[in-house]
C-alpha cells in the first residue's frame, strides 16, 4: 500500500480544481490531482471555455497556448426566422430591428441595466432595500431579486428576443425564469458572456477541452505537481475533525493536511470519515441538473430556415424556438423529474477535423432542465434513446430535413454532477447578492465552506467553470486575500 505525503490533494480534475492545484504548485506546494476518469475521456467536450481574466493572469495561461476569442454569436430561430445577438453591438441591433425596431432601440439601455446589476458593489442592506428600494444601488438589488421573465418583459416586446436571453440565463441551472430571484442569473450570464472587456471574463479558443489542456500543461511544468487519471478517491480521511488525506479506491493512501474537492457537497459528506460531530447537512432535496450533451455527427450541413450557413458554421449557439413560456413549461416537467415534451435546446455546430474526403460536422445539442436523475431512474438504456429521439424530433419540427443529415449520435456527460448549478445554488447566490456584502463573483469566497479543518469544497452546484472558485480556494489556503480580483 502506497503512502505518500503531500501538501495538498485535489479531488477531481475540474477547471476549478486544476486552477487551485496550479496556484498551489506555483507557490511551491506539492500537490496531486486525482481524477476518476481516464485521460482519454474528453471531459468538458462540446462546452464553452470561459476563464476569468484574474485567473488567466495569475497562471500566465497565455504562456501555455491559451488564446482568447470573441464570444460566439447567439441565435434564436422561430417560424423560419432567426434573431442573432452578435458580439458586435451594431450587428445585434440590426438583427433585432428586423423583429422589433423598439426593442433594437431598447437594447443599449437593457445592457446598461444588466451591467449595473452585475457590478461588484457594496449595496444596501436588506433592511434598507425593504424600506426604500428607490435609487441606483436599490435598483441593482431589485434586479437581482426580480425574475428573468419580469425583467425581460419590462425591457422588450419581442418574445423570441426574450426567449434567447432567458434560455441563456437559466441554461445549466434548475431555476425557472418566472421565479423571483432568477434575475441574478441574467446578470451572471451577461458577465460570463464577456461581451464587454470590463466584465472580467473571456472566451478561450478550443472551448473547455483546450482550457483544461492548458491547465494540465501548466501543471506538468511544475515538478511538485502531479495529475493522476483513472484514480478515484473513496474516502476523505479526518482525525478529530482535522484532515489527514484521502484513501483511494485501489487501496492507496495519500496523506496531506489539505484536501480540495470539487465533488458535490453531499458526496463529500458521504466520503468524509473520522470527524467527531457529523458535519452540518443542509437537509434539502435537490433536483440536480444533468449536464448531458448529445453529440450528433452530421454528413451534410443542415438547413435551418431563416439562418444562413455562414452564421450556423461560425460556431453560433442556436436556440430552438426559445420562449419564456416554453422554458416555464419545461421547468414544470423538470420539477417532476421528467423530460419536457417540448425541450429547450441549444445547438452548436463545429466542423469535424479529419482526413476523410467528406466534410462532416459535429452538432452538440444541450437541453436545459434535464434532471440528473429521471423519475424512472438514472440515465441508461432506452431512456437515453428517448432523450435523443426527443431532441431530434424537436429540431426536425423547425428544420424538416435535419434528421436525414444525422450519421451517428452519442450522449456525453449524462449522470455527471460536477458542473451544474442547481436551484439551491441559485438560492445561495441570491442570498449573498441580497446581503450585498459582496458582488456576484466574490460570493464564492464565503461558500468555500470548511466542513472540517483542511477541507475546501468547490461546490459545483454553485460555481461555473471559469476559475474563480479555484483561485479563491488557493488564496485562502496560501493566506492571500480571498478576492477574485486581488491579483488583477
Amino acid at each position, binding site marked *: 500500500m502506497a503512502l505518500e505525503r503531500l501538501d495538498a490533494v485535489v479531488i477531481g480534475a475540474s477547471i476549478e480544481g486544476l486552477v487551485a492545484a496550479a496556484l498551489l504548485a506555483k507557490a511551491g506546494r506539492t500537490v496531486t490531482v486525482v481524477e476518476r476518469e481516464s485521460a482519454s475521456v474528453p471531459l468538458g467536450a462540446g462546452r464553452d471555455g470561459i476563464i476569468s481574466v484574474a485567473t488567466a493572469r495569475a497562471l500566465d495561461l497565455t504562456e501555455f497556448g491559451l488564446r482568447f476569442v470573441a464570444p460566439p454569436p447567439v441565435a434564436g430561430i422561430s417560424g423560419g426566422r432567426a434573431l442573432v445577438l452578435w458580439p458586435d453591438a451594431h450587428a445585434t441591433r440590426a438583427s433585432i430591428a428586423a423583429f422589433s425596431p423598439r426593442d433594437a432601440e431598447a437594447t443599449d439601455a437593457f445592457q446598461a441595466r444588466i451591467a449595473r446589476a452585475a457590478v461588484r458593489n*457594496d449595496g444596501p442592506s436588506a433592511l434598507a432595500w425593504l*424600506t426604500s*428600494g428607490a435609487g441606483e444601488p436599490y435598483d441593482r438589488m431589485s434586479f437581482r431579486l426580480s425574475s428573468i421573465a419580469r425583467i425581460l418583459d419590462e425591457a422588450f416586446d419581442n418574445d423570441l428576443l426574450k426567449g434567447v436571453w432567458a434560455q441563456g440565463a437559466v441554461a445549466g441551472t434548475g431555476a425557472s425564469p*418566472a421565479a*423571483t430571484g432568477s434575475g441574478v442569473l441574467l446578470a451572471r450570464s451577461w458577465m460570463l458572456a464577456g461581451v464587454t472587456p470590463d466584465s472580467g471574463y473571456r472566451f478561450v479558443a478550443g472551448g473547455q477541452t483546450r482550457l483544461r489542456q492548458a491547465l494540465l500543461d501548466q501543471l506538468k511544468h511544475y515538478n511538485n505537481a502531479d495529475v493522476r487519471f483513472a484514480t478515484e478517491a473513496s474516502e476523505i480521511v479526518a482525525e478529530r475533525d482535522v484532515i489527514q488525506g484521502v484513501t483511494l479506491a485501489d487501496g492507496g493512501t495519500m496523506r496531506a493536511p489539505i484536501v480540495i474537492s470539487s465533488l458535490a457537497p453531499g458526496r463529500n459528506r458521504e466520503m468524509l470519515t473520522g470527524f467527531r460531530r457529523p458535519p452540518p447537512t443542509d437537509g434539502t432535496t435537490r433536483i440536480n441538473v444533468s449536464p448531458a450533451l448529445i453529440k450528433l455527427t452530421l454528413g451534410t450541413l443542415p438547413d435551418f430556415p431563416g439562418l444562413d450557413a455562414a452564421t450556423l458554421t461560425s460556431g453560433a449557439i442556436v436556440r430552438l424556438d426559445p420562449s419564456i413560456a416554453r422554458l416555464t413549461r419545461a421547468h414544470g416537467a423538470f420539477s417532476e423529474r421528467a423530460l419536457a415534451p417540448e425541450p429547450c435546446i441549444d445547438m452548436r455546430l463545429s466542423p469535424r477535423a479529419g482526413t476523410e474526403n467528406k466534410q462532416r460536422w459535429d452538432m452538440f445539442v444541450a437541453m436545459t432542465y434535464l434532471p440528473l436523475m429521471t423519475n424512472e431512474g438514472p440515465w441508461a438504456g432506452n431512456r437515453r434513446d428517448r432523450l435523443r429521439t426527443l431532441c431530434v424530433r424537436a429540431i426536425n419540427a423547425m428544420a424538416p430535413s435535419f434528421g436525414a443529415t444525422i450519421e451517428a449520435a452519442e450522449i456525453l456527460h449524462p449522470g455527471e454532477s460536477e458542473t451544474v448549478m442547481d436551484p439551491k445554488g441559485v438560492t445561495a447566490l*441570491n*442570498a449573498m447578492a441580497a*446581503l450585498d456584502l459582496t458582488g456576484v463573483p466574490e460570493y464564492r469566497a464565503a461558500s468555500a465552506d470548511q466542513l472540517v479543518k483542511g477541507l475546501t469544497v468547490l461546490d459545483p452546484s454553485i460555481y461555473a467553470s471559469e476559475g474563480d472558485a479555484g483561485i479563491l480556494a488557493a488564496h485562502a489556503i496560501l493566506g492571500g486575500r480571498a478576492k477574485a480580483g486581488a491579483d488583477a
Partner: protein
Amino acid sequence: MRSSPANSDVDVVVIGGGVNGLICAAYLAQSKRRVVVVEALDRLGGACATAELVAGHRVSAITHLLGPLDASVVKTLRLQRFGLQLTAKQMATVALSPDGRHIVLDGDLRHTAQSLTPHSPLDAKAWAPFDARYRKAVGPLERWVQSPPGGPLEHAARSSLFPTRSAARPGAVLDAELADFLGGSIADFLDAEFETPLLKGVMAFDAVLGSALGPRSQGTAFLGALRSALDGEASEGLVHPQGGAGAFVTALAKSADAAGVRTRLKSRVARLLFDGDRVAGVELANGEAIHAPVVVSSLDPKSTLLTLGAGRHLPFGLKRTLASWRTDGCISKVNLALSGIPTFKGLDRRSMRERLVICPSIEYLDRAFAAYEQGKFSPDPALEITIPSTHDASLAAANHHVLSAYVLYTPYTLASGGWDKAKTDLIARVGATLRQYAPDLPDLILAADVFTPPDIERLAGGKGGHWHGGDLTLDQLGPLRPASGLSRHETPVAGLFLCGAGTHPCGGVTGINGRNAAEAVLAGAVAQGAP
C-alpha cells in the same frame, strides 16, 4: 359630456367599492372630506361577498377568511356598532393528516408541541425555540407592513421605523436574517429547521398562498415572514364575520354611509379627467363627469394607470414596469353544500371551526406547482378549508353545512381545453382529496360550485382574478409595490392615489391599504394646503 348635479361638492372620488375602497372612503369621510365611491358592478365588496349556493346554504363566495384584519380599522370605523359580529377570530390552523395525527398551529406553544410529538419528538422540542427565534427575526416586519415604504430616501423616517439599527450601517445581524428570507426559498428554510413533512407542508403552504411561486422558488421564505408579520400583535388574525364575507361589506358600507360617503353602483369609470398634469375627476361610461381634485383608485395599479388615460402623464420606464405587472390569479375557490357534518379522522368538533389545511408535504406542494407551471392543475390539490357553518348558524339550516376551499395552483389559462370543461374535473379532484381525510364527505354533497381565476376576475372585477391585485412576489412587494417610487400610494399624477390590494402590504382584507391611502391623501392635502 353631461355634468353630474352632485359635481361641485366632491372632494374625493374613490374608484371601486371593494373593501379597500370603502375603508379609504370611510376614513376620508371621517376627516370631513366629501367622498363619492363609484362601483362598476351592481353591488359593493368586490371579492368579499356572500352567495347562496343552493336554497338554504349561504357561503362566502370568494374570499372566505378575512384578514389578518388590522384591529385599528375595526375600531376606528366602529364596524361592530354597524353590525359586524365576528363568530371566529384569531383562527388556528390545523394541518390535516389522513391518519388523524393533525398538527395544530394556534399560537399556543404547548398545543403545537403536543400535536408534533407523534410525528417527531425532535420537532416537538424544537418548536418553542424556533417560534421565539422566528418571531424575533420577523418582528421588524410587523411595523414594516403597517406603513408604506419607499419614496424619497427618508433616513429619519426609516430609522424611526427601525430604531434597532441605523440606516447607515449595513450588515447588522438582523439584516443577515432578513437577507436570508429575501433570497431563500421556504423549502430550504424549513428543511434546515424541521423533519416532519406535514409541518413543513403547512408552513410552506402559508408562504406560497397567493403567489405564483413554488415552495422551492427563491424569495418564498420572505413571503412566509410577511404572512407572519401581518398576523402580528396589531391584528385580529383571520376572522369570520357572522353572515360571511358579505356581512363585513354591509357593516363597512354602513360605517361609510354614516360618515357621509355617497356610493354609486353600476358606475363604471371610463377615464380619468385631467386639468393639466393634475387629476380633475372621473368620467363614467355613460358620459357623466364627476369633478374632484382627488381621485383614489382601488383598482389594480396596472388598470388604474394604463387603461384610464393616465398613460401620457407617466414616464416611459414606469409604463413598461406597470405593463409587466403580474396579475394572473392562481387560486380557485370551491364551495360545497353539505347535508350533514363530515367526519374528519381524529378531528374533534371544536377543531372543525378552525382553518384546515391539506398539504401533507413540501413535495406535495411542489408537484402541484409543477403542474401549474405546465398549465394544468394537480390531481392532488393543496387546499385551505373552512366549514363556517360550524360556528355561524346563519349560513345553513340545522345540521346542514357549507364547506369552502381555496385550491392552490390553478392556472388562469389552462394549457389545453378551457375552464368550462375542466371545472367538473376540479370539483371531482377536490372531492377525492377531501375523501382521504373525511371518507363520508362526498356522500354529503348537495351542491358544488367553483370560481376559477377568470370567474373571480368577472365577479370581483379585479384584473386576472388575483385577489392581491398583483402577484405576491419579491419584485412586486414593499418598495416595488406597485413600482419603485409609487409605493406610498401616490402616483406621478398629482391628486391621483392608489388604495387597492396592489399597494403595500398586499391584499387579503387587512384594511391596511385603504387606511394608509387615506392617510396619504390627507398628508398630501396638508402639504399642498388644500382642499
